[in-house]
């Protein structure tokens, strides 16, 4: 009854549009703060070179921001267009943070961004600084609200299923807002954005230093990026660990899958550094383990176990059976049975209704499912392990490599030994793509690790779709990928062109390409 191809296509489209969107978001989140720092120095010292820095990095910011806006529009409408049953089923809770994001964050960011680019001559120094600051606040607030929405998908608290309206309804806005998953993921993600922007500025500045041009401009930019990047990278790692702790509490399946923890180990569990998770045998081949570490990360204790996937699957099987009963009672209520007994019977198993819905991938009426269906549904609650296991490890590995890069950059810059260590400058250039890869992998872990649920333990992904056809999806998916790729190529072309030009692109007449050749090493007029 469920068209698997259509469900897969819907998932691919959401994944593609979201991952494309997130190519542009992290740079926006972080670069705004770097611009704020640079402009603050300009306002305090009055040195023109800092204004030039704001204008130049602001130009690159703009090239990136434009695609962030374009691809972001899709996200606002895609729940309705492609996840229409989801929109009905959880809009009561999920829609609120999205709407508040528009009101509180997008308006702020987008209203002031135009003045950031075009208001230099019309605003006083302080007014323009305020504009830059408010843009940064706006973009970071949007990250807060989207994580409140996303956090609720991972850990749907503050809400309850209503059989009368056939949907989840909010019972506490405060609980939804203060969702611990949302809060840790928000700080982890914005810090990742700060790392991305720092690596971007660090790498491009390093390249100018390697080329020996616009040195005062490049050195100052490098210094700002190294400091901000080091602090941010430490935050990402610490907050990522905090995120792991929260997972251990509320998303046991995701944690166990990331760690390829098939069976529950005696506490404290070891951390598998390397291994080849095997979904059929439920074992990890060639595993290399560090004892105790995972237990410490996930439970912050020596004695609490991390529950393995096999045990979780058994737990889920029991919940599916109770979900079957809930579904049978739901059917009675939906067909007009208003008796308090039916309602009480439904309420007894209501928390498992989502597990009951999992059976709809096999049968129209979950109450009629066979024992084999139940077992298959329970097996479907365990996501594919190896992609999660590896995506997570690559992300963490990149995080530590970036930490080393920022640490060395900060140290060598502070001790004024930078130009003698060209290897570091080259490392910074080569490392530019690293934060993007880490960010995309991070989202992959977060969202793929939530499968098979659209809303954790509430609404299965395959039910959440719209009533469209595979044809519709092939058409739109091709359109999105084609259009986005074309725009991405144009964006990268412009980005590379202006990054190569450097501050000369501002047309101020005092930078490298405007003064011609060898005079490049002289200090620009300030």
């Amino acid at each position, binding site marked *: 009854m469920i068209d698997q191809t259509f469900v897969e296509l819907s998932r691919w489209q959401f994944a593609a549009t979201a991952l494309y969107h997130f190519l542009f978001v992290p740079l926006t989140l972080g670069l705004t703060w770097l611009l704020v720092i640079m402009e603050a120095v300009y306002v305090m010292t009055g040195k023109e070179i800092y204004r030039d820095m704001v204008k130049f990095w602001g130009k690159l910011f703009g090239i990136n*921001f*434009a*695609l962030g*806006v*374009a691809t972001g*529009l899709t996200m*606002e*409408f895609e*729940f*309705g*267009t492609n996840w*229409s049953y*989801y*929109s*009905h089923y*959880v*809009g*009561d809770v999920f*829609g*609120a943070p*999205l*709407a*508040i*994001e*528009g*009101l*509180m964050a*997008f*308006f*702020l960011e*987008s*209203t*002031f961004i*135009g*003045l950031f*680019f*075009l*208001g230099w001559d019309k605003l006083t120094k302080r*007014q323009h600084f305020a504009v830059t600051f*408010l843009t940064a606040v706006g973009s970071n607030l949007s990250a807060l609200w989207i994580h409140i929405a996303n956090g609720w998908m991972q850990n749907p608290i503050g809400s309850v299923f209503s059989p009368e*309206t*056939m*949907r989840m*309804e*909010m019972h506490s*806005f405060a609980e939804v807002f203060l969702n611990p998953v949302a809060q840790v993921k928000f700080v982890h993600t914005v810090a990742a954005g700060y790392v991305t922007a720092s690596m971007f500025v660090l790498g491009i500045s390093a390249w100018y230093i390697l080329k020996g041009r616009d040195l005062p401009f490049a050195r100052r930019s490098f210094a700002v990026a190294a400091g901000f990047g080091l602090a941010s990278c430490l935050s990402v790692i610490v907050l990522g660990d905090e995120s792991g702790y929260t997972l251990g509490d509320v998303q046991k399946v995701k944690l166990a899958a990331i760690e390829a923890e098939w069976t529950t180990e005696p506490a404290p569990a070891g951390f598998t550094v390397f291994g080849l998770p095997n979904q059929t045998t439920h074992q990890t081949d060639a595993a290399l383990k560090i004892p105790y570490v995972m237990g410490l990360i996930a439970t912050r204790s020596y004695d609490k176990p991390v529950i393995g996937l096999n045990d979780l699957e058994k737990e889920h099987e029991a919940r599916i059976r109770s979900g079957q009963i809930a579904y049978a009672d739901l059917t009675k209520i*939906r067909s007009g049975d208003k008796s308090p007994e039916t309602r009480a019977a439904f309420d007894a198993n209501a928390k498992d209704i989502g597990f009951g819905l999992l059976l709809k991938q096999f049968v129209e009426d979950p109450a009629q499912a066979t024992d084999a269906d139940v077992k298959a549904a329970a097996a479907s609650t365990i996501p594919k392990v190896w992609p999660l296991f590896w995506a997570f490890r690559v992300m963490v590995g990149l995080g530590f490599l970036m930490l080393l890069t920022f640490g060395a950059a900060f140290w060598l810059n502070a001790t004024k030994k930078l130009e003698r260590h060209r290897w570091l400058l080259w490392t910074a250039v080569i490392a530019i793509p690293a934060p993007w890869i880490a960010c995309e992998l991070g989202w992959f872990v977060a969202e793929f690790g939530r499968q098979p649920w659209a809303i954790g333990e509430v609404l299965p992904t395959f039910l959440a779709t*719209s*009533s469209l*056809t595979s*044809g*519709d999806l092939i058409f*739109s998916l091709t*359109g999105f990928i084609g*259009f986005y790729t074309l*725009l991405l190529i144009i*964006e990268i072309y*412009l980005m590379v062109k*202006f990054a190569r030009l450097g501050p000369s692109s*501002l047309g101020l007449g005092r930078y490298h390409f405007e003064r011609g050749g060898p005079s490049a090493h002289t200090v620009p007029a300030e």
Partner: protein
Amino acid sequence: MLDYETLKLIWWVLVGALLMGFAITDGMDMGVGSLLPFVARNDTERRMAINTVGPHWDGNQVWLVTAGGALFAAWPMVYAAAFSGFYMAMLLVLFALFFRPVGFDYRSKIDNPTWRNAWDWGLFAGGAIPALIFGVAFGNLLQGVPFHLDELLRSHYQGSLLTALLPLLNPFALLAGVISLLMLTVHGALWLQLRAGEPVADRARTMAMVLAPTVAVLFALAGIWLWVSGDGYRIVSEPAHGSLPNPLAKEVVRAAHAWFDIYGRLPITLLAPLLGLAGPVLVSYLAKWKRPGLAFTVNALAISGIIGTAGLSLFPFILPSSLDPRSSLTVWDATSSHLTLMVMFVAVAVLLPVVLAYTVWCYAHMWGRVTAQEIEHRSHSAY
């Protein structure tokens, strides 16, 4: 906490206000985009037109984003059924809108006529196509939309790909689309008359003078068409307005002239169509008399009148179903829970005035005519 029925009504007003806010602000820059090939003939003239909206179009577009978010939060079932039902039309709007952020930011970054012309056409498409399609959508709401809800309240829509898109583009809906496109184009023209240097401002003035009366004529024509065609839906019986939302609990019939019911019951509502008819005529004269500021304000009222007329005629319907009238979604049975409506009402009541305040601050600080000299002076930083 306000009672449920009152909140449901408030949210109908708020969604309407957000749509009007979108049309008045973003409609203006979409209008400028639609006019770009006609009022600006060389690069400097185009940059003059573009830079009158350059600092503001992005903030303006958030009205659309917020209206989308508000639909999701306040009318989840409408958001679900309409956006998936109008799938191909939504894609068309989205793809056209993609041209705007990149068009504005990238166009003047490279000094090459082919590059700049290409983006100018992108800005034209990004303005004209959404303006047209939003009108087409309203035209279809007035005719009823072929969808139904099943027992689990999942919406099913008739048709896919072209068989879903082409019926949307029927003559009446296209008429509504043209009204929408023209009213926003007039809005853009008045903005250019107010903010662009010569000769762009003068050409824009001519456009406004000619197009504004056309809006009034087509709007009247749409009203007559609706009366003659007999489209309309009426609720025969329904649960109490304050009860838990359940669209399937009511009875609805298709009834000729039903879309005119409200004007008989509540004559004050006639103000909306009157604004839509008289406003554009007055706008035409004000443009001629070189009072673009006043004309812009009157046109904002005319736009509100036209959108208001559509909303009032449909009331209490939001999304009538032609396939299964009972599945129609209304102000009373497609809303969120009592708590969510209240939370969102507070959020809007607190945040929207703040948004309006800083939006005014931004417009005030960027005020002034965008002249050719200014474009040449700021050629590295202007759009």
